[in-house]
């Protein structure tokens, strides 16, 4: 997993609440056997609408999603996170995330930044005035920033310490466990010789 310290990218407003994982990626798109290529299924049902925000040219390079509350509810499919990442999103900002989605995000390296509802609204207003504007998300200082001058937005976001540490260090669960390689090797050395093997 790549280290995540700070990210500045085009932010895309998604003015909906309760975006569940079936809306993020419908079940028919789950048939792939890889972890990549799910971008085609991202928000598939809405993308038929030419006015859907993802279809607008100013958001072609979007990497920060600013969504309404209760993002990622529903099925536990990890594909929802992969679809967002495959499309190019690095950060999702919302005032509330579903637990499993937040967990899956942390595992895969997608930053789920939880902010106050008012911050989402201010970001949306800012993006309405400046379509295609960028937002900066700084994991070290746990802040989101957008715009400059007197109207600049700067506020903090919530993320649990453990996930923050893992993202900053670029460690996925596997990376962390591999860090205990010596303990695992010692355990393996003590296993009885009669334990079965497949090879």
């Amino acid at each position, binding site marked *: *997993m790549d280290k995540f310290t700070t990210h500045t990218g085009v932010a895309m407003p998604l003015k909906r609440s309760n975006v569940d994982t079936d809306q993020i990626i419908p079940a028919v798109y789950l048939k792939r*056997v*890889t*972890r990549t290529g799910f971008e085609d299924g991202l928000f598939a049902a809405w993308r038929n609408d030419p006015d859907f925000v993802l279809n607008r040219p100013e958001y072609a390079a979007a990497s920060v999603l600013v969504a309404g509350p209760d993002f990622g509810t529903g099925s536990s499919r*990890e594909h929802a996170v992969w679809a967002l990442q495959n499309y190019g999103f690095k950060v999702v900002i919302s005032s509330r995330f579903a637990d499993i989605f937040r967990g899956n995000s942390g*595992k895969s390296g997608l930053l789920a930044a939880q902010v106050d509802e008012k911050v989402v609204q201010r970001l949306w207003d800012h993006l309405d005035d400046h379509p295609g504007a960028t937002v900066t998300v700084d994991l070290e200082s746990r802040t989101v920033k957008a715009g400059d001058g007197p109207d600049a937005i700067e506020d903090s976001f919530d993320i649990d310490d453990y996930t923050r540490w893992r993202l900053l260090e670029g460690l996925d*669960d596997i990376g962390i*466990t591999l860090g205990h390689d010596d303990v695992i090797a010692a355990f393996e050395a003590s296993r*009885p010789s009669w334990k079965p*093997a497949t090879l």
Partner: protein
Amino acid sequence: MGKTLAEKVWDEHVVRTADGEPDLLYIDLHLIHEVTSPQAFDGLRLAGRTVRRPDLTLATEDHNVPTLDWDKPIADPVSRTQVETLRRNAEEFGVRLHPLGDVEQGIVHVVGPQLGLTQPGMTIVCGDSHTSTHGAFGAIAFGIGTSEVEHVLATQTLMQARPKTMAVTVNGSLPPGVTAKDLVLTLITHTGTGGGQGYIVEYRGPAIEELSMEGRMTVCNMSIEWGAKAGLVAPDQTTFDYLEGRPEAPKGADWDAAVAHWKTLVTDDDARFDEEIVLDASTMTPFVTWGTNPGQGVPLGGAVPDPESFEEQQDRVAAEKALEYMGLEAGTPMRDIKVDTVFVGSCTNGRIEDLRLAADIIKGHKVDKDTRLLVVPGSVRVRMQAEDEGLDVIFKEAGAEWRGAGCSMCLGMNPDQLTPGERSASTSNRNFEGRQGKGGRTHLVSVPVAAATAVRGTLSSPADLVATGSEA
């Protein structure tokens, strides 16, 4: 204070503990199949990682495989892709694979025990919820998600919070004709589908001790159906007798060392469980489901319940919905329900003992003219053994279909599916809406009930065959 069996096995596998973190648990055996492994292997590839212990990993093809024409390419493109991907991954990462056509191919939970790879005191995981089956040997065995599959592939460990423990003590003896399947269906109706949530359950007591290994596997298999994390049974002479001489079981001095250790794997007298349930086997009868979850069951001698008879509002609503989906009227005697298809198979009831039992009942009878009977061995070995014993001839003479090994009609992922509205009596483990095919209606039953139902065309027990004198 002493320890429970589950605590002993768990503690023997803890690689690392730290305050506020889950335990890091060593995994003795990682079983793999084509459906839940592709993204895990892809994740390894993307991160440039390898499989840490290919020698503790075993792959088979089961969910997607056809049980007819298995020598031809798989027709469904998605199924074919998953199977071919597994073959490529096994090759690339050096994992032993038993593919379609191989003599050891079959349902992953049938193959592990029959090879003797499943042994007491192990930790066993698989990207499949019915991994609990292996607990019958006194192992801690549970299903995991695809990210966890990747974690085990890369590290041979898993981060796991220690579950609570529960004892299910079953006193008395099962009456003749009542099986392990009836026992576990009775238990699930008793507890509800969430009753085991968060627990590793130890099944114990005289009725459990009297079960064969196949029967114990049937009980442990359905642990997940009442929400348990895992289910296990303490190893005893029945376990050792089953294992001795199997291809991957320890041999010679290793066997003695292993058995000496396995004998210590019992719950200490002064150990305490977080929860305990006591049941009496001697009052149990053939048990079948009427609804769309495994907890919606009644004795075969009973009737479809009236939704109004449930105390809880949510149970009433669930029952109403289930009856509508199942096309059933409250008050209908279960024995009057006509069945289109009978499925004998799956990781719950697709072992040699199950097929022997079914053949024994079918022998000399014919399958009802409006009913079809599908007999699907859980593995190629089971199929071969059944053919050695002439069971296939009995089934075919009765008019049943004798198939190749796989998950088959347990789930609608391969060609063996129910059509909308079609009703089955199935020895499998899930009666969810659409589980056996879109719109299909499933009654979960034991092997004897399945066999007798195939003959009479309505839900029946072997006793009904004698009563109606329907011998051919």
